[in-house]
């Protein structure tokens, strides 16, 4: 067991997979000599050279589209978007092409590739360096969507993503990159795509979250236990598409109450899908309304720290929402 932070976990997953499979390559802006703006690819360029760790021009559509071409050709590209906020020029390639080529070719072509993207706020990045834009992708059939919240999950899921024959969007919450270290199994340990984790057991209510919110919600859960004697079960989804509804429903069947938490704005956010599924599947079990706690309806995280704090979901807000729901 090594103690790694999420950034190190991601780097080591890429390194090991590149070592293991020469079809794996990395491409993106500043991923080469500089090692990425967050350092995720640090050391890979020196080790694997100029072509397998390829600094591209500043063109996201090209990064995604060329990665798809290479994937169709037989490689296993890992494309980095420098920030999730800058993926939109590649949106056409992702939703028209990468997600659809398998289906449209009746299964004769596929695009085994990963798109890694640092996302999320709380880092003074304002509107365009803070977005949690997973909902644009979770509704897209043909993609798999992963958003880990721990170093072990980050490493194990990235390995699964690289090996998966389908395109995987890999959301890395940038605030968590260096936030904490935790144990990561040595060696070739994968975490399967499509399985949620029970991050904390409890029986009073279920709180469903992912990414950085795992950390926030776990902190809130401790407060709830300490101050209110409320034992929240915390489900870390880890994979957003496909959604492991079984794990969620097992919890909700037990607790009868579900709180869904995410950082993005609420209206049309991924939490809507989770809440709608719980409401429909769990109708018999629910003894309180499926509740969502999400970011405010503004077009992005504002910059000034007063405003950013206002935007971000804090443990206190989770506690508050959980108390209201538990009192139901």
């Amino acid at each position, binding site marked *: 067991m090594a103690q790694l932070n999420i950034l190190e976990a991601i780097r080591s997953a890429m390194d090991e997979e590149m070592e293991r499979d020469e079809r794996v390559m990395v491409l993106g802006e500043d991923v080469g000599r500089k090692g990425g703006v967050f350092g995720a690819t640090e050391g890979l360029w020196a080790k694997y050279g100029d*072509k397998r760790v390829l600094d*591209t021009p500043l063109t996201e559509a*090209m990064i995604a589209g060329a*990665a798809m071409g290479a994937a169709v050709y037989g490689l296993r590209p890992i494309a980095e978007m420098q920030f999730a906020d800058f993926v939109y020029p590649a949106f056409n390639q992702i939703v028209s*092409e990468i997600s659809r080529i398998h289906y449209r070719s009746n299964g004769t072509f596929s695009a085994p590739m990963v798109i890694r993207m640092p996302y999320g706020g709380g880092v003074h990045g304002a509107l365009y360096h803070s977005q949690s834009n997973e909902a644009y992708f979770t509704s897209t059939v043909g993609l798999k969507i992963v958003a880990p919240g721990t170093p072990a999950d980050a490493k194990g899921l990235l390995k699964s993503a690289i090996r998966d024959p389908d395109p995987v969007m890999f959301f890395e919450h940038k605030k968590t990159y260096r936030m904490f270290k935790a144990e990561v199994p040595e060696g070739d340990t994968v975490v399967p*795509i499509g399985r949620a984790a029970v991050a904390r057991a409890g029986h009073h209510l279920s709180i469903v979250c992912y990414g950085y919110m795992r950390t926030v919600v776990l902190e809130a859960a401790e407060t709830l236990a300490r101050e209110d004697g409320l034992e929240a079960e915390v489900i870390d989804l880890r994979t957003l598409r496909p959604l492991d509804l079984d794990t969620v429903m097992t919890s909700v069947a037990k607790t009868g109450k579900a709180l869904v938490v995410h950082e993005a704005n609420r209206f049309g956010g991924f939490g809507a899908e989770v809440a709608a599924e719980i409401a429909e599947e769990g109708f018999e079990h629910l003894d309180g309304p499926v509740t969502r706690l999400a970011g405010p309806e503004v077009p992005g995280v504002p910059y000034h720290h007063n405003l950013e704090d206002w935007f971000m979901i804090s443990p206190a807000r989770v506690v508050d929402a959980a108390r209201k729901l538990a009192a139901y």
Partner: protein
Amino acid sequence: MAQTEIRPRHAELGLVDEDVLAMYRAMLLARAVDERMWLMQRAGKIAFIISGQGHEGAQVAITWPMRKGVDWMAPFYRSIASTMTFGMSAEDIITAHLAKADDVSSGGRQMPGHYGGAPYNIVSLSSPVGTQVLHAVGIAMGAWVRGDDVVAMTSFGEGTSNQGEIHEAMNFAGVHRLPVIFACENNGYAISVPLDRQVGGGSVAARAAGYGMPGVTVDGSDPIACYAAAKEAHERARRGDGPTLIEARVVRLTSHSSDDDQRRYRDPAEVEALKARDPIPAFATELRQIGVLDDVTDERLRAEVKAEVNAASARAEARPEPTTSDAHERVYANPIAGSGTPTPLEPVDGGSH
């Protein structure tokens, strides 16, 4: 056969007479398939057709140097002659238009004109114009990273050349001298919008300079000129000298598609004048002039082609229709159980009507 004083152009390029005859036959076959599609559309067997008529000379000739089973192609919706030259059969094309269950392009999932074929190294095409150009570049990048001797070719219209993705694709290919051929088939219109409203300055080839690659304009109704440009581009790519942009000036002999009526935006005189630039009679005339083609051969080829299309249609029509039992399959190569992963639709009883 050739009795002319000067050495015919094709010989200068290393083509023998059989080659140019084969090119001519490929053009005839593509045209015959195309015309058959229109008949089937009018007969109500096909909902939609988008034609390659007028583009065949450029398509056959530019594809000619491409090595089957080695090189790769990312075509566009007019690429009937290109895809056929690169391996698709008349039956493949017709089957795709009929959306049969075993259609090699998509198993009936895509509209007519959306070519693709894994056995042929032809990347499955979508509809948003220009996306395929990045796929060709990605294949070329893959080959370059792996050190494979592979050339990728991609085709698109002049309207499409204005899409941002094309710029990004060409620039990236230029930066790394990737082995890719960009074939722009400039037919002067993007649906109803003429060249001078599409391309600032009017020349697509002129853009190549801005990417550090050669850009050549060729008469797309002159297959030999097209072949010369393509041969050079293919050799350049294989030598590691990078990409080439070929702009072939072609004519669109039909309306944009079966949903369009070009008389709404094009002069009758202009439409009439197009015929003079039809590559098929033009090439036939040239081949006759250099003694490669005569009436007997021409009639034999046309009869062969007709028979081939008839047989292909009959076989294609007899193929099975897709059923819904597996309509939810082949969405993921590795479907993982969970919400969002497709499952069969539940049948409905659903009311009396």
